[in-house]
């Protein structure tokens, strides 16, 4: 997306012209209209056929809306619950109660930081064992009281570090998977940005898995795949394409249920519209899940995950 800067520049120019139009009294409206049309056309051209790697960059965009942004618009009365009751409170994975159209729900949100300071506190959005165990707590709580679970997934991956290993991050992820497979309440996971491998899956095993149009979800980052499989860091674009990690690809592969459309240029270009579209989908999906008994939901979830995988059956 080398064009993004050009597009932004043009947008700024239009804004300046508009200001000028107002203050100077010179009629520039036809000029403004012309430029706006041009901008729209350029934008469409730039974003209509995004490559997979370009979508990765959008998913990681510095202005991309994060979990707390969505929590603020999808729900009312977010009531954060802190801490795993064992070791700490992961700021890269937030949990709490909230109301969705007046109904109590349990919320899990993987949260990245915007400033350097915030990123330090949030480990650049990488969840640690404390985070997975906090999620486990809220999942159990939700299950006890019949609250649906909405999980907003956005992480480059589980935090790789000595402390994580000492606290058995792999075991924490595994335990979450086991729990999410069998809880009785409706569960919806939404990949809003980066669905980074096991670190994302650990809060994304759900009855419904939705993805924003420019979100990505993958077993490994394109950089990681390039380094391991191609042994060349420069092959990230190729790796991004090979991994089929975008929402449209994953819908086609049958592993997610719905793609939430984003405005041209990405969710940050019109957050309200994105958030409204997501909310509409959440309510629709939740309504469908409500119509099922807990037993039928668990059965369907089991069938769904039991059936994941593609292989060839040998004749005979």
């Amino acid at each position: 997306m080398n064009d993004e800067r050009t597009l932004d520049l043009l947008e700024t120019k239009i804004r300046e012209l508009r200001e000028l139009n107002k203050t100077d009294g010179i009629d520039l409206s036809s000029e403004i209209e012309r430029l706006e049309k041009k901008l729209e056309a350029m934008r469409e051209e730039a974003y209509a056929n995004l490559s997979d790697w370009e979508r990765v960059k959008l998913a990681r965009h510095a202005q991309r809306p994060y979990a707390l942004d969505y929590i603020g618009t999808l729900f009312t009365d977010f009531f954060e619950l802190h801490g795993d009751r064992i070791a700490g409170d992961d700021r890269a994975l937030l949990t709490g109660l909230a109301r969705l159209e007046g109904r109590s729900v349990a919320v899990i949100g993987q949260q990245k930081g915007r400033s350097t300071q915030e990123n330090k506190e949030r480990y650049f959005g990488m969840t640690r064992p404390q985070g997975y165990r906090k999620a486990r707590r809220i999942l159990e709580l939700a299950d006890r009281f019949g609250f649906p679970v909405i999980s907003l997934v956005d992480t480059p991956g589980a935090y790789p570090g000595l402390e994580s290993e000492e606290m058995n991050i792999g075991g924490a992820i595994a335990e979450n998977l086991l729990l999410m497979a069998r809880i009785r309440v409706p569960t919806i996971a939404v990949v809003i940005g980066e669905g980074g491998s096991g670190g994302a899956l650990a809060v994304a095993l759900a009855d419904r898995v939705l993805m924003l149009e420019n979100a990505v979800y993958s077993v490994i980052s394109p950089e990681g795949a390039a380094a391991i499989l191609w042994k060349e860091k420069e092959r990230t674009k190729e790796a991004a394409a090979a991994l089929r990690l975008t929402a449209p690809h994953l819908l086609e592969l049958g592993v997610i249920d719905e793609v939430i459309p984003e405005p041209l240029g990405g969710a940050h270009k019109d957050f309200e519209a994105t958030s409204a579209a997501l909310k509409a989908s959440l309510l629709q999906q939740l309504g469908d899940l409500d119509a099922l008994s807990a037993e039928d939901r668990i059965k369907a979830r089991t069938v769904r995950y039991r059936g994941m995988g593609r292989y060839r059956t040998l004749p005979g």
Partner: protein
Amino acid sequence: MAIFKDRHYFRVKLDKDRDDSLWMRCKSCGELVFKRRVRENNNICPYCGEYFFLTARERLESLIDEGSFVDISRPIVAGDPLEFEDTKPYPQRVEEAQEKTGLPSAIILGQATVSSIPVVMGVMEFQFIGGSMGSVMGEQICHGMEEAIRRRCPFVLVSSSGGARIQEGIFSLLQMAKTATVRGQLAAAGLPFISVVTYPTTGGVQASIASLGDVIIAEKGTMIGFAGRRVIQTTIAEELPKNYQTDEFALAHGQIDRVIGREGLREELGDALSFFVEAVR
């Protein structure tokens, strides 16, 4: 897999057809050893005690009652759902692994007895694309657990895997969810799952099925953990202790139940299973 190069762990080809020399040199202690003696000694160097890799078949034989194994795997092989090609096409990679190992996939699955106790047992083959878990391995593990439920017997899984089969993309990631789901059913059916972790058990396998055993037994000298040394050093450049992700490390941090040397593993497994015999009936 390059990830594991930092450890002096290597494989000895004991197959006479491929290498008919009678002697080998232990890379750990440098002693010249009679190969048959190594083989009869569970692939352990008789001089220094270094463990050489066991193939899945050798591992299986080292654990079960002689002649008790019956293959119950499903007749499936890897597909190519993403039409994946890195330095070579994925199907070619699979074919080469099949030729190298003589196995259809990275896991053997069967029924057998251990200390006369019937079990369903899966054993991963590290030489098959790093024992990575793709759709086939996930399916065989789930099939194994379902067979254990049907036969009302314990399930044993011997892990040796670098993690997910990257070439199957999202499908490999979802095997973590799949195996965890069926593991829940095994638990609901009241059947025990003994997870045996051997060198190495990492990534997606460690972060799913291998960590979900009722009992987790590690072979001495194993490596167990989520993110490999190299991943950590390249992402956050953190200094890591020497014992990072060793059996000792995992035991000290409460991640596994027991550590046992290779020569004692068969008896250990039988002992563990024996406690569940009444409960399973």
